[in-house]
């Protein structure tokens, strides 16, 4: 084996009481695709930040080309030859592709445009340099990010969960591109928790658990189950399959909702109709940014419509009804952004329980019943395995996954007649995600009408009775889960159906 390009020895990083990376050793060779595999919170992101110079290790050393280095800033790491493609893009929507590139790479725009085309051709990443970023699809935006990194001639490219935003059809071309880079002698660090992709693409995998390296394997030699066990440290939780049952009456529906988004960069909805009945889980598949946020806000009552009968809740027209009244009518809602919307970061978990549960015996004539508030919060914490020092901890201090568990738990604890959930398992580890899905199915079996908006197709296939795909603000016809494949759904996701 040739000498590694990047080599980490005993790298340790601590955030207060949390040991994010504990004596991590990692060797990345040129001409290879190296996977860093781990659950949420396993320390993948921290490790990436240390390599990229965003953070500095507390102990251990980093070697580049055999020489010790201490990248103290991203610019320095960049000069060294490290490029990063983040999961969420750092592009200005109001600028064109070439203008976004020019923010990072000096040069005349005409030259840069030519170089963007050249780089795109060389690596199979077609992109129009003059296009405005807000007009690009998610896949195209990712291409812009990758091209921008490649134009700096990196020797190591780090990709953070690059497939999480892509429709299934867009993944194989991306992988071809990445393999092309490897064949040109670049080193790639591929960060993911998707086992299939890692087995497909990577030649080495370092598995992180709780900040430590637990195994180094060739992923092509292992089964997904073995990899999953190594990743979570125990057997995968059993999948709860939804048993088909007869759904009841329609509890939540949209009738021909057309909504012009006042935000020029938002998505407008056109003629969206759907119905969710008691005792069924309906999924909304599709890539975020295709109207999911708008649809969720219209369902929750955060956005009201002019026409009352455009939304029906529990048999009553609710289009002009605000969020509080819809909650009183039996709706509960988990938004995709937990911090600042689903929860107030600067308030305790107890107060965050109060946020939506105050109608459930937590007040008396407008006075708060603090003891009941705490009791209900403790129950939510215990029932949903929320890791927190206490109910008095501020919501902003919880990790994303734990806060998601809390918000989900709170809304489920309201015993809703209708539950709308956006991205139920974002940022949640494998075991907790399985628990959340099981609770959604239990809720459905108890007669609740459940609508799940999710980017994760596997998840929708696991829990939904039916699903629609939202693409460019239009909703596909209802697809019965048992009769379709992920590829069918994927076609709707890119508007090819």
């Amino acid at each position, binding site marked *: 084996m040739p000498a590694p390009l990047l080599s980490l020895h005993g790298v340790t990083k601590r*955030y*207060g009481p949390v040991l994010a990376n504990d004596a991590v050793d990692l060797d990345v060779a040129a001409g290879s695709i190296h996977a860093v595999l781990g659950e949420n919170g396993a320390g993948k992101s921290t490790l990436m930040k240390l390599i*990229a*110079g*965003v953070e500095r290790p507390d102990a251990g050393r980093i070697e580049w080309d055999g020489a010790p280095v201490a990248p*103290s*800033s*991203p*610019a320095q790491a*960049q000069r060294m030859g490290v490029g*990063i493609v*983040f999961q*969420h*893009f*750092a*592009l*200005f*929507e109001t600028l064109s592709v070439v203008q976004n590139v020019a*923010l*990072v790479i000096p040069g005349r725009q005409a030259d840069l445009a030519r170089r963007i085309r050249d780089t795109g051709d060389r690596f199979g990443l077609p992109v129009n340099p003059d296009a405005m*970023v807000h007009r690009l699809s*998610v896949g195209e*935006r990712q291409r812009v990010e990758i091209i*921008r990194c490649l134009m700096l001639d990196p020797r190591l490219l780090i990709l953070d969960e690059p497939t999480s935003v892509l429709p299934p059809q867009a993944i194989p071309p991306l992988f071809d591109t990445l393999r092309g880079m490897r064949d040109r002698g670049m080193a790639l660090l591929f960060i993911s928790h998707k086992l299939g992709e890692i087995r497909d693409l990577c030649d080495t995998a370092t598995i992180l658990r709780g900040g430590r390296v637990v195994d180094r394997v060739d992923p092509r030699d292992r089964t997904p189950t073995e990899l999953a066990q190594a990743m979570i440290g125990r057997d995968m939780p059993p999948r709860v399959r939804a048993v088909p049952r007869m759904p009841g009456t329609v509890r939540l529906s949209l009738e021909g909702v057309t909504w012009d*988004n006042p935000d020029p*960069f*938002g*998505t407008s909805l056109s003629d969206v109709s759907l119905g969710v009945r008691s005792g069924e889980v309906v999924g909304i598949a599709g890539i*975020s*940014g*295709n109207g999911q*946020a708008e649809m969720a806000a219209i369902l*929750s009552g*955060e956005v009201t419509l002019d026409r009352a009968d455009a939304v029906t809740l529990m048999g009553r027209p609710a289009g002009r009804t*605000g*969020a*509080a009244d*819809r*909650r009183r009518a039996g709706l509960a*809602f988990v938004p995709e*952004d937990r*911090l*600042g*919307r*689903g*929860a*107030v*970061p*600067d*308030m305790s978990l107890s*107060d965050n329980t*109060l*946020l*939506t549960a*105050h109608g459930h015996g937590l*007040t008396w004539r*407008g*006075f*708060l019943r*603090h003891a009941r508030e705490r009791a209900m919060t403790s129950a939510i914490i215990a029932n949903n395995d929320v890791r927190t020092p206490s109910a008095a901890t501020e919501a902003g201090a919880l990790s994303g996954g734990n806060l998601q568990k809390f918000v989900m738990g709170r809304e489920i604890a309201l015993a809703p007649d209708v539950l709308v959930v956006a991205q139920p398992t974002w940022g949640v580890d494998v075991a907790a995600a399985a628990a959340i899905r099981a609770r959604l199915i239990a809720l459905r079996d108890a007669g609740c009408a459940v609508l799940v908006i999710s980017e994760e197709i596997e998840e929708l296939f696991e829990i939904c009775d039916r699903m629609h795909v939202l693409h460019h603000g239009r909703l596909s016809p209802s697809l019965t889960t048992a009769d379709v494949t992920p590829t069918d759904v994927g076609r709707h996701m890119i508007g090819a159906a």
Partner: protein
Amino acid sequence: MVRLMRRDRASRSAMVAAPLLALGAAVLVSLILFAALGKPAGVALHALLIRPFASWYSFSEVLLKAAPLMLIAQGLAIGFRANVFNIGAEGQFVMGAVAASALPVLGGDPSGPWVMPLMLGAGMAGGLAWAGLAAFARDRFGASEILVTLMQSLIAVQVLNYLLLGPWKDPRGFNFPVSVMFPDAALLPILLPGTRTNVLLVFALLASVLAWVLMRHRLTGFQLLVGGLAPGAARYAGIAPRRAVWLSLGLGGLAAGLAGAGEVMGPLGQLQRSVAAGYGYAAIVVAYVGGLNPLGIVVAAVAISAVYIGGDAATVSAGLPVPAVEVFQGLLLAFYLVAFVLVRYRIARMPGPATRAATPRRGGRPRTFDGPVPSAADGGP
């Protein structure tokens, strides 16, 4: 590059030490300043800091001034915590004073037990109406309440001038711009015999308790807080923002109006132009120095009132020029705010400015306190 990073937890001892350190720093700088002016620094500081507490009478004057400050600040703090910034309590205070004065000025020589409650009620109504205009403008037209209330304050003072120079001028007042002296029935009872401290102090303490109950024990107060801390979460939970606007401005106007009534029914005993002495603006300082917390505001009102009384004393006994007194007051406040920030944030040295492409800062872990960073859109709404 140096940045302020939010501490995980502010230590209690630091919170107590902060005001003392600020006081020490202000004293130190003032000593140099007063010495440079050739004034007796020791005498000046004694007047500024000790005199307000040195005698029962001067302390009662502190309490007299503290009452309206406390009352107004309690009302304002509710709005500030709900992100409704009523900067024009001065105008509401003046309109409260004007409305309360209407009865004794226009009603002949009223007497009877109903006079006082009627005037207090009129004062509250005056402040409420004045603030209500701003609430209406914000609710209906989206006009910034900061600008509207601030400009309304200037108008209120002109209304006061017009009345005192014209229709409400005391015909036997030797052409001075003052109203008639109020009859006894229109004057607030004295709380501490032998002093000027009146029952407005009781109202202010009562308002403090009510503010505490509202913000700690009422759902309404909780919802106001949510609206201030996380507007997105308020929308999510269905908390109407217009309610926060009306309630915040309404309570602020009510409290300021009552304080204005108390001023003309107490120490002034008539409507004068000096009623617009800046209580409404000072109360903003009181509210923030008190940490927008009802108990903190009680303490801050007394402390800041003492600083004002001490300043008056220093001009007399040490011959300090008024600007020097104002510099001392300003130093005290500035050092306090610095100390207060350092209790909550620590100074951290950061690596040089990073290339944006490699480090997109998205609402990350350390809450930084530096200027806004051009945030790259994350794709999709």
